[in-house]
């Protein structure tokens, strides 16, 4: 309670208190957004499942083929049944969470720096640097993303790393735009001019003053993009261009389940449901965050 009062103090004593108070207020607003909270729950669940996968299910059952147990329907031993090689689908879905999470983290780690590296200088320096960089971005923005990712994935060869690269190569342009727009609105603020007057280098100003200001909107955008990244990765997996067997990637699992769809529906359906729920979670979360950040109820 004291903590709460300190956080909500209308006259914060320190910058830190003001900042934390701001976050706390945003959290209070977010908490009222039911769908957003559900999204947060799903995302936390995904992270939890990925982190504690070996504790939840027996790691061996995700990969061990038990041909005698092929295509079993739901039972106590196999709540989600088994696939065409007798592997436990629940265990594979649980371990698949790790792959999905790895993909989104890796793509984020590539996309955000590329976007910032192109958007920040464009907004900060303006002029022909801006024109050139944004023209370059626009060209990429006008491409069909999935088809391009497909072509990249095909060129680089199948595999999870290449899928990540292919997705990242097509996903960065919106971040460059965003970073540029954010930079433009802050470029003329007084504290940046003050920093300039104190003789701070451009690089230093960008890194210490502008990047932190861009991050919130970049993070919201990223949350909203996560679903798209997950779906693209799963799509590549489904086509056989992503993670390769026997890895329990959800898209690839749907693809193998396709052959037995009519008789053993669960083999394809369960991993697809996992993809859907996970991307829905990210979408709900991102949507809620956007509402809070734009001050809507």
């Amino acid at each position: 309670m004291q903590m709460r009062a300190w956080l909500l103090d209308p006259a914060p004593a320190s910058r830190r208190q003001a900042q934390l108070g701001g976050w706390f207020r945003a959290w209070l607003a977010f908490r009222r957004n039911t769908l957003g909270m559900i999204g947060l729950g799903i995302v936390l669940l995904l992270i939890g499942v990925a982190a504690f996968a070996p504790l939840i299910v027996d790691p061996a059952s995700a990969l061990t083929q038990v041909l005698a147990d092929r295509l079993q329907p739901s039972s106590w031993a196999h709540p989600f049944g088994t696939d065409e090689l007798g592997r436990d689908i629940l265990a594979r879905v649980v371990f698949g969470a790790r792959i999905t999470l790895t993909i989104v983290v890796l793509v984020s780690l590539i996309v955000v720096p590329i976007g910032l590296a192109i958007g920040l200088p464009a907004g900060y320096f303006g002029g022909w640097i801006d024109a050139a960089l944004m023209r370059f971005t626009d060209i990429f923005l006008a491409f069909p993303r999935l088809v391009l990712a497909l072509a990249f994935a095909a060129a680089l060869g199948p595999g999870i790393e290449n899928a990540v690269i292919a997705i990242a190569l097509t996903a960065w342009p919106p971040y460059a735009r965003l970073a540029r727009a954010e930079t433009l609105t802050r470029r003329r603020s007084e504290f940046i001019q003050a920093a300039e007057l104190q003789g701070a280098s451009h690089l230093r100003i960008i890194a210490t003053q502008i990047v932190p200001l861009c991050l919130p909107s970049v993070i919201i955008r990223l949350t909203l993009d996560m679903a798209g990244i997950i779906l693209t990765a799963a799509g590549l997996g489904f086509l056989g261009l992503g993670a390769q067997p026997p890895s329990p990637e959800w898209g690839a699992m749907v693809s193998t389940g396709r052959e037995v769809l009519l008789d053993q529906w669960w083999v394809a359906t369960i991993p697809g449901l996992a993809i859907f729920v996970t991307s829905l979670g990210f979408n709900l979360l991102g949507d809620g965050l956007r509402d809070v950040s734009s001050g809507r109820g």
Partner: protein
Amino acid sequence: MSAATSGAGHTVGGVARRIVAPLRRLGALLFSVALTFLGLTGVTFAIGRFMPIDPVIAIVGDKASQETYDRVYRELGLDQPVLVQYGTYLGKIARGDFGNSVMTARPVLEDLVRVFPATIELAFLALVIGVVLGIPFGVIAATNRGRWPDQIVRFMSLVGYSMPVFWLGLVGLLLFYAKLGWVEGPGRLDVAFDDIVAPVTGMLTIDALMAGEGDVFANALGHLVLPASILGFLSLAYIARMTRSFMLAQLEQEYILAALAKGLSPWRIIWVHALGNVWVQLVTVIALTFGSLLEGAVLTETVFAWPGLGLYMKNSLFAADLNAVLGGTLLIGAIYILLNMLSDLVYAMVDPRAREPN
């Protein structure tokens, strides 16, 4: 054009601006389209160059002698500097020469022309579904902001955004084809109906109608309706969402208050005045949706064994048929770019203000 007959400001400069500005905008548009297209070919060229599949072996096979290999290597121009190769590549594209497909042993362009109508048929019906349902849903959500219709539309949109289309296709097949038998299965037509109607447009439903073959039409539609509905649902999600936010912005405008003060019915205010202004923005959204539907076709067509561009590209990918893959990429990319341009032009036609600079 009647824009020049403006009532206000008959200055020479004003008139000149009204004639020159659209031309300049058109010029700028063409320039950016050309540049984007150049960028696209650059990327496909680069992919072609760096693909770990050896194009020579793809042609001559890995048992060919070194001599044959070298000859084909030179024939393909692979010994030339990269820029020269790119120039040759551009020249070929300009002539419609995308090379031959290894898989079908025919020119890629011919293949594309053959498979593309199936994709158009699918994407177009999906777009119609998305527009016809998505716009009203978005309008209803906006006019009931914060209440349950809004929540439902919002949730439905998020579900659409989160749906793996290939999985939805499988579940749809399982449910509506295998279990309920409401629709036809994968493919475009039952075997029994093959070759009854000669292809004219390549779109089976239209061809069947033109030939007056009711049975073929019904069967083709039965095959089409499920994949189109599934793609349509995805575009519906996006269109409804965008319509909602555009509508909300319009409903706050002063002209809405003026319309209320005139005593107009809510129906007229929402569907004529507010939506009239939203249309202008929706044009771009619809064009983008169509582009993404073409893309989405790759996955949907795989699931539904729909012999369109998507399936063709997917099969080419696995046959390491580089020319075919890049030809398909170029086609979809070019349509994408053209749609962007077209939406700009249509925008200028729909919006009376777009004829003049702000």
